[in-house]
Structures are given as structure tokens and as C-alpha cells.
């Protein structure tokens, strides 16, 4: 096989993981980590220009190129953030050098697994990749070895494994549905072949498969009744991992779901997957919005906010149609950028305050103006206020829903407003008022955070026509 961009996004992280596992020394490995993610990003960007043909295992099309570039970009900025974050953790002794080495290797394995899940053209391979990503993140969540971290890792592990098991059953059912039409063997698992022949599949089998896939991968997306692992995993792991989990891994699971949704959409006899996704999405949104009020831990709060936004995105894709899909894609991109920026800020906040308790933080804009205002800007963005990008995408979701299902739109707006109020209530006590708690120093790197927020701001004010056209094109693919 010749070297192309697709193998690039896989080989670079895999090689980097091996290298980082072998090399000692934090300064060198942390920089190598950044170098590897930069290379991956370059490979991913080249997918826009030259794209290899789809094989039996790997595939690149407009849909997954979007996801890969987003993953590579956030992966890159997070590695820059993690440079200073991990440095601080080493200084304070929360992590020891062997753990840092392990952390960097695992970071690259996670990048590899996510990219593999995104480029996989084979539904079995996609499943294996998502399993690998789950295992890696479980190890990362438990890295602090505190009681809470281990409990969180264990909970994530068990719930994630059950989700993954259900997804595998769904995958087997898809194979069973495809076998009489496509024929036995590898071809019946190749997604590009499946989607062209899906018209002739047995609809009943396909329906059942989708239910299992929705429950299985939905657990990984963090949809409401299946979300229990998510807040713990976000709160107890290192913050760069929270950023990657929220910003990327949830998207990857959603991407897997979207691929199967496209299969169902290609079959006229199958049930419409939309209503199921709409129901789960709305449930997640409203549930998470209410949960925002009682949170005392800052990272848990933003984890619930992630559930809320994954709910909105799933809802948008469930509604379907070019406009709602467009809104969903835009919202997913904006949420990834904003939420990881928030976690960058929160990571440094937790470091200067030496706690994650909201009650022990206060007056951040006075003691640490740059960090405090960065956090305020991030929360304003995630709450969906104009003129930032999330306002745009939420507005599109709401307006496209109002045109088709006004009642659903009412619920959506209700959830959004509840969530907005909850976030601001907490933000008020964190960012303003009397300074509370210790005011330690940190060698923070603000560049990744402000780079993300700047992108979100620009997208809110002016979207380049080329980007709009690209998203419309992808939205059309989703059907």
C-alpha cells in the first residue's frame, strides 16, 4: 500500500504512541506529542485536496473528512494545552514521570483509535476502533489513582463495555441483514457496499439492528438514560482528557450512529430512525439542563452541559433534512471547539484554585483576569448567546424545527433556556464577586483556548461561503 493521507492519520499516531512509550523525560515527550498531533493535522487537512479511493477497510468521503479534520484540530490544540497542564501536574506531584509517559503514549493511542473509527469502511473494524478508544480513555480517567478516579474509571468501564457489547450485537444483525443480498464474507461488512445495496435488505432485521446500535453507541454519545458514566469520567480524569472526551469521542460515537442511520434511510421499508433520535436527544437536553443546577463540581457541571449539547446535536440529526443536518453539523463543530476551550480554562482554574469545588472559587475575573474572562467568554458561547457560533447553530436548529414541528421546538427552547440560566447562575459565583479560595499561579498557555474561542466568534459573525457550501454538501449526504 502506498502512503496516502488516510494511512497518514493512522500511522502517525500509532508510531508516535510507540515512540512516546519508549522515551523518558517529560519535556521531550510532551513536545513530541505536539509534533505528532501537528503531523496528523496536516495529513487530515490534505484529505480536502487529494483523497485516496475507498478500500474494503478504509474510506474517505466528505462526511468523515469533516470529522477527521475536527478531531485532528482539537487533538492538536489539546496537546498544546496539555503541555502546560501536565507540566503543572508534575510540579505539584499529582502525576509522577512514569504516569506522564504512559499518559502521552495513551493520548496518541486514543488519537489513533478515534481516527480509525472515523476512516473505517468496515463496520466490524469501526466497532473494534471504538472499543479501543473506550479502553484508552478508561485508563486515562483512572490515571490519578485516587479513590474517586478509580470508581469513575470502573463505572465508565462497565457501562461502556455494556454499550459496546450491545453495539456489537447490532453490528452482527446488520451483517445478517446484508448477507442474503451482498453475499457471505467481508463484503457484507463494507459500509460503501452496504449503503448501495441497503434497499434490498430485510427491513425488520435492520430495524432491530438499529435499536441495538442506538442503545450501544448512544451510551458512548452520552444520551440521557445511558449517560451515567459521563459526568464521573469527565470530572475525575485529567482535564485535557475531559476536553478530548467531550469535544471528540462523543462525536466519534455519534458519527458511527450516523453511518447506520444512513443505511436505514436507504431502505424504504425500515423504520425512520429520526423519531428515536429526536426523543433521546430531547430527553438528554431537558434532563441535563435541569441537572446543571445542583452541581458543585465545575468539571461535572460542564460534563452535563456536554450531555445537553449532544442531545441538541442528536435531535438535529434526528430531524433530518438538509437544514437540520446542516445545523447539527455546525453545532457539533462549534460545540467541540467551545467545550474544549472551556475545559482548557477549567483545567487552569482548577490548578490555580487547587480544587474543583465551585463553592471554593470566586472572583476569578479579579484575581486572574485573562483566565476569568476567557472562562466567561466560553460560557457565554456555550450558553448560546449572540454573536458567537453556538448561537448561530442553535438558532438554525430551533428555526428549522419550528417550521416542521412547533411542539418539539417549544420543548427544545425550554431546555435551552433552562440550561442557559443554570450555567449563568454558576458562572456568576465563579467569575465575579469577592475573590474566594487560594489564588495560585500557573504557567497557563492561553493560546489554544483563545484560538478556539476566536474561531467560534468568527463563525458566529461571518461564515466563509466555501465552508457553508461544504457543510451543505455534507448535510445533503446525511439525508
Amino acid at each position, binding site marked *: 500500500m502506498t502512503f496516502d493521507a488516510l494511512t497518514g492519520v493512522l500511522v502517525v499516531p500509532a508510531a508516535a504512541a510507540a515512540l512516546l512509550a519508549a522515551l523518558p523525560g517529560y519535556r521531550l515527550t510532551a513536545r513530541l506529542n505536539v509534533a505528532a498531533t501537528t503531523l496528523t493535522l496536516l495529513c487530515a487537512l490534505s484529505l480536502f485536496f487529494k483523497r485516496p479511493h475507498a478500500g474494503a477497510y478504509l474510506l474517505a468521503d466528505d462526511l468523515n473528512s469533516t470529522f477527521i479534520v475536527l478531531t485532528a484540530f482539537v487533538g492538536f490544540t489539546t496537546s498544546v494545552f496539555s503541555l502546560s497542564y501536565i507540566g503543572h501536574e508534575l510540579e505539584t506531584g499529582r502525576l509522577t514521570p512514569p504516569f506522564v509517559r504512559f499518559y502521552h503514549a495513551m493520548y496518541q493511542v486514543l488519537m489513533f483509535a478515534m481516527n480509525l473509527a472515523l476512516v473505517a469502511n*468496515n463496520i*466490524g*473494524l469501526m*466497532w*473494534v476502533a471504538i*472499543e*479501543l478508544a473506550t*479502553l484508552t480513555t*478508561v485508563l486515562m480517567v*483512572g490515571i490519578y489513582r485516587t479513590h*474517586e478516579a*478509580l*470508581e469513575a*474509571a*470502573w*463505572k465508565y*468501564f*462497565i457501562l461502556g*463495555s*455494556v454499550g*459496546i*457489547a*450491545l453495539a*456489537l*450485537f447490532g453490528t*452482527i*444483525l446488520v*451483517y*445478517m441483514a446484508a*448477507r*442474503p443480498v451482498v453475499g*457471505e*464474507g*467481508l463484503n*457484507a*461488512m463494507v459500509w460503501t457496499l452496504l449503503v448501495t445495496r441497503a434497499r434490498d435488505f*430485510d427491513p*425488520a*432485521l435492520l*430495524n*432491530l439492528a438499529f435499536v441495538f446500535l442506538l442503545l450501544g453507541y448512544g451510551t458512548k454519545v452520552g444520551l440521557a438514560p445511558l449517560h451515567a458514566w459521563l*459526568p*464521573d469520567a469527565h*470530572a475525575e480524569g485529567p482535564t485535557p482528557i475531559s476536553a478530548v472526551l467531550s469535544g471528540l469521542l462523543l462525536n466519534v460515537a455519534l458519527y458511527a450512529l450516523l453511518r447506520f442511520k444512513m443505511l436505514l434511510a436507504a431502505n424504504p421499508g425500515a423504520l425512520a430512525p429520526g423519531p428515536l433520535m429526536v426523543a433521546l436527544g430531547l430527553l438528554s437536553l431537558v434532563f441535563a439542563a435541569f441537572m446543571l443546577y*445542583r*452541581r*458543585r*463540581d465545575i468539571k*461535572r457541571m460542564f460534563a452535563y452541559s456536554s450531555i445537553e449539547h449532544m442531545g441538541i446535536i442528536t435531535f438535529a440529526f434526528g430531524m433530518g433534512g438538509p437544514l437540520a443536518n446542516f445545523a447539527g453539523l455546525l453545532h457539533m463543530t462549534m460545540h467541540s471547539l467551545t467545550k474544549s476551550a472551556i475545559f482548557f480554562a477549567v483545567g487552569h482554574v482548577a490548578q490555580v484554585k487547587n480544587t474543583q*469545588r465551585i463553592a471554593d472559587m470566586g472572583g476569578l475575573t479579579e484575581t486572574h483576569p485573562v483566565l476569568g474572562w476567557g472562562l466567561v467568554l466560553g460560557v457565554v458561547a456555550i450558553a448560546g448567546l449572540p454573536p458567537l457560533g453556538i448561537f448561530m447553530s442553535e438558532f438554525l436548529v430551533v428555526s428549522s424545527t419550528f417550521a416542521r414541528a412547533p411542539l418539539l421546538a417549544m420543548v427544545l427552547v425550554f431546555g435551552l433556556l433552562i440550561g442557559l440560566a443554570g450555567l449563568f447562575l454558576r458562572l456568576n459565583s465563579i467569575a465575579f464577586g469577592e475573590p474566594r479560595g487560594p489564588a495560585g499561579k500557573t504557567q497557563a498557555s492561553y493560546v489554544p483556548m483563545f484560538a478556539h474561542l476566536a474561531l467560534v466568534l468568527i463563525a458566529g459573525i461571518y461564515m466563509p461561503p466555501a465552508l457553508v457550501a461544504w457543510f451543505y454538501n455534507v448535510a445533503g449526504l446525511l439525508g
Partner: protein
Amino acid sequence: MSRLDFDIAHFLAGLLVLISFVELYQDRLYALLNIYALHALTLAASVAWQAFIQDAPHLYVTAAIALLFKAIVIPVSLHRIIVRLGIHREIEKVVSVGGTMLAGMGLVALSMVVMLRVTHGADPLAREDLAFALSVVLLGLLIMVTRRNAVGQVVGFMSLENGLVLAATGAKGMPLVVEISVAFSILIAFIVIGIFLFRIRERFDTVDIRALDRFRGERR
């Protein structure tokens, strides 16, 4: 496929469901582990039989994994972990035995109704295999939710996974089955190592409400 081939495959798959039921009412950890070993052994026989009648030699690898890893290595190491960590040998159940068994019967009936109705196009063996497999999966889930004990939950997960392997081998000609069973074995190995390293005796199971609060992030 001859009648006998079908009958043996059918018998082994049915046996797996039966053993899942036996797992369901165990209240001692050692007994549960022994029954699980039997479960894995039956799975190995079933997979090997599928390999034989489908003429698919690669499935023998999956059968070997089931035999060596799941039926021997895992139960033995869990046995030792229980001794080393001093885990309670009795399994605390959430629901009474009668209730659990009734729920289990309901789940098996559900999977029969669902699978047999949707798969009438498929060939009879794959169809019934799939129905049995779904029963094993659902019973595995039931075992997981009715146990408070971490080892009990892991055994539930492993029998759930056996159901998946049964489904995957029953789907004739499915690619990547061996890879998937290896991936699952790695997952299970991780879980078992996790129990040992994390020293998880009982999951979220404590009379100390403060510990629960701490875990839910509601620290004061």
C-alpha cells in the same frame, strides 16, 4: 446441512441459555465462577461445532480462545483474586431469586418473540442461534443488574459476551469474528486486571452515605 448437524448446534445453543439461568440464581461466588466456566466450555463446544459444520477453520481459533482463556484462565484468576482480596464469598442480590428467574423467563420469551418474528427470511439455524444468543445477552445484562458485587457483575458481563460470540459464529461467513473475539478477550482481561489493581470489592456499595456523596461529586 443434515438434521443431526442442526440438532447438535441447536442443543448446544439451548444449553448455553440454560446455563445462563443457572448463573442467575447462584448466591456464592465460587459456585458462580464454576458455572461460568461451564458456560464458557459449552460456548467453546458450540463454536467448534459451528466451525465444523460451516467448514470455517478460523472459528476453531475462537473456540480455542473460549476454551483456554474463558473456561480456564479467567475463572482460575478470579478465584485467586477473591482469595487475595478477601472478597465476600456471598453475592448480595438486589432482587429475590424468584423475581430474577421470572424476569429471566420474560427476557427469553421476549427475545424469542422479537428474533423469530424479524428473521423469518434467514435460514433456520442462524435464526434460532440468534434468538438464543439474544437470550444469553439479555440474561447476562440481568445478572449484571441484579448483583451488587463487582465480581458478580463481571461474570454477568462475560456471559453476555459469550452470547455475542454465539451470535457472531452463528452468522454464517461473518468476517472478523476471530478479531472481535480477541478484542473482547482483551477487554475482559482488562476488567479482571482492573478488579485486582483497583481493589474493587463491592461496587458503589457502602452503608457510608458520605462516601456515596463524595463519589457523586456533592462534596461539602
